[in-house]
C-alpha cells in the first residue's frame, strides 16, 4: 500500500495515524508539496487529476479522497474503526467524514496561507474555521452529556481520526483553540491511544513520555 505523503499535511497525517493505530503497513512516497509543488506536476496528475494529496495506491486501486482512504485502510486492517455497531453509528461516522472536508477548506486553508504563503481569503477561512470548531465543540459536549467520549459513541472511530488533525493544528492558521474545553479533552484522549503517532505540531500526551534527560546544547 503506497501513500503519497507530505509530512506537514494534516490530511496525509490522518492516514498515517490510522495505519499506525491499526497496524497497517504503508510505503510512504514523499511528495514535494512545498516548495516544489510536485502535486501539481503533469506526472502527479496522471495519478490524481485533482492534484491533491493524500493519494493511496494499492495494486490497481487508486484513492484520492482522505475519507475514502481512511475507510479502505480501516476495512483492510481495523474494521472496528469503521464504526458499524449500529445504523446510528454508521450515520455519524459518515457525517464526520464529510464534515472533515469543511475543516480542510477552512482551517486547512488558513494554515497553508499562514505557513506556506498560499493564497486565500484569510478572514473568510478563519471565520469558517471558528464556525467548524464551535460545531465540533457543541457535538462533543452533547456526546459527553450522553456519557460518550468520542464523536460517534463510546469508542474512537474514523469520525475522530478524520477531524482530529485540523482541530489540533488550527492555531497554525491563526485560529485559537483556547475556548473549547470539550475539544481539549477529546484531543487528549486521542493523543493517549495505544499506537498513537505524532506529526510536527501534534504530540503524544507528554505525561506518557519518559522523563527527559539532560542533553548538552539545551539551555
Amino acid at each position: 500500500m503506497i501513500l503519497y505523503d507530505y509530512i506537514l499535511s494534516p490530511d496525509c497525517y490522518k492516514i498515517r495515524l490510522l495505519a499506525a493505530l491499526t497496524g497497517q503497513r504503508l510505503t510512504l512516497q514523499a511528495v514535494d508539496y512545498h516548495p516544489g509543488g510536485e502535486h501539481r506536476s503533469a506526472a502527479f496528475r496522471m495519478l490524481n487529476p485533482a492534484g491533491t494529496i493524500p493519494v493511496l495506491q494499492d495494486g490497481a486501486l487508486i484513492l484520492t479522497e482522505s475519507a475514502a482512504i481512511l475507510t479502505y485502510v480501516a476495512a483492510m486492517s481495523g474494521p472496528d474503526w469503521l464504526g458499524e455497531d449500529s445504523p446510528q453509528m454508521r450515520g455519524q461516522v459518515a457525517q464526520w467524514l464529510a464534515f472533515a472536508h469543511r475543516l480542510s477548506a477552512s482551517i486547512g486553508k488558513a494554515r497553508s496561507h499562514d505557513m506556506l504563503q498560499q493564497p486565500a481569503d484569510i478572514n473568510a477561512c478563519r471565520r469558517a474555521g471558528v464556525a467548524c470548531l464551535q460545531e465540533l465543540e457543541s457535538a462533543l459536549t452533547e456526546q459527553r452529556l450522553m456519557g460518550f467520549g468520542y464523536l460517534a459513541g463510546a469508542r474512537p472511530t474514523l469520525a475522530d481520526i478524520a477531524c482530529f488533525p485540523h482541530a489540533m493544528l488550527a492555531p497554525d492558521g491563526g485560529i485559537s483553540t483556547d475556548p473549547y474545553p470539550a475539544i481539549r479533552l477529546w484531543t487528549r484522549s486521542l493523543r493517549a491511544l495505544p499506537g498513537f503517532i505524532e506529526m510536527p505540531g501534534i504530540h503524544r500526551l507528554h505525561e506518557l513520555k519518559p522523563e527527559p534527560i539532560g542533553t548538552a546544547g539545551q539551555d
Partner: protein
Amino acid sequence: MTAAWTPVALARDLPRLGVMPVCVDGIDVALWRSASGRLAAWADRCPHRGMRLSHGFVRGEALSCIYHGWSYGASGSCLRIPAHPDLEPPEAIRVPVHRATENNGVIWVALGDQDNTPPALTGLVPLRSVTVQARAEVIRSASGLAIGADGIARGHLASIAVAVLMQALPEGATVLHVLAEPADPAALIAASRAVEALRRAAESKGAA
C-alpha cells in the same frame, strides 16, 4: 488588597494532569491539576524565556514547560532544569502563584488576597462553558436572565433552570459557565443548544 473571585472553568473540564489557559482581569493564567488532584493557577509565563506554561504538561505534582522542560513545584519554585540536571535551581526562579478554589463544580481564581469564598451554587450540575464575542450586558439583555442578590444570573434555557457565571475576557468577549438543574441527557442537550442560540443572538446584537 482583596480581589474578586473570577469563575474560570467547570471543574469537570480540568481532569487530573490537565492544564488550560484562562484569563482573569486581563491577566493570562495557566490553570492546572496535579496527579493527586491539587488545583493551581499560575502566571502563564515561564520564568526562563516566557513560553506559555499552559502549553506545558503536568507530571506528578509539577508543571513542566514545553519549551526547555524546566519544571515547577507546588509553590511555583523551579525544581529542575533538564539541561543542567545536577544544578539545584536558584530560589529566585519562581512562577507567580494565584489563589484558586473549587466550589460546587466551578473553579474560581483571585489575583489578590481573598478571605471570603465564592458564591455557593448547590443543587446544580455543570452544563458547559462557552465563549461569546459580546459583553456581559449584551448577553444579559439577549438572554432574559435575571441577576439575583448573590450577583448570579439565573433563568431558564429550553425550560431547564440554569445559573450562568460570566467571565470577562479582553476585547469585549465573555465566557459563560452554565450550570443546570439535574435533568435527563435529552433535556440537558436541549439546554446546551439553547446556550448556542444565546451565543448567536448576543453576537449578532453586539455586532448590530
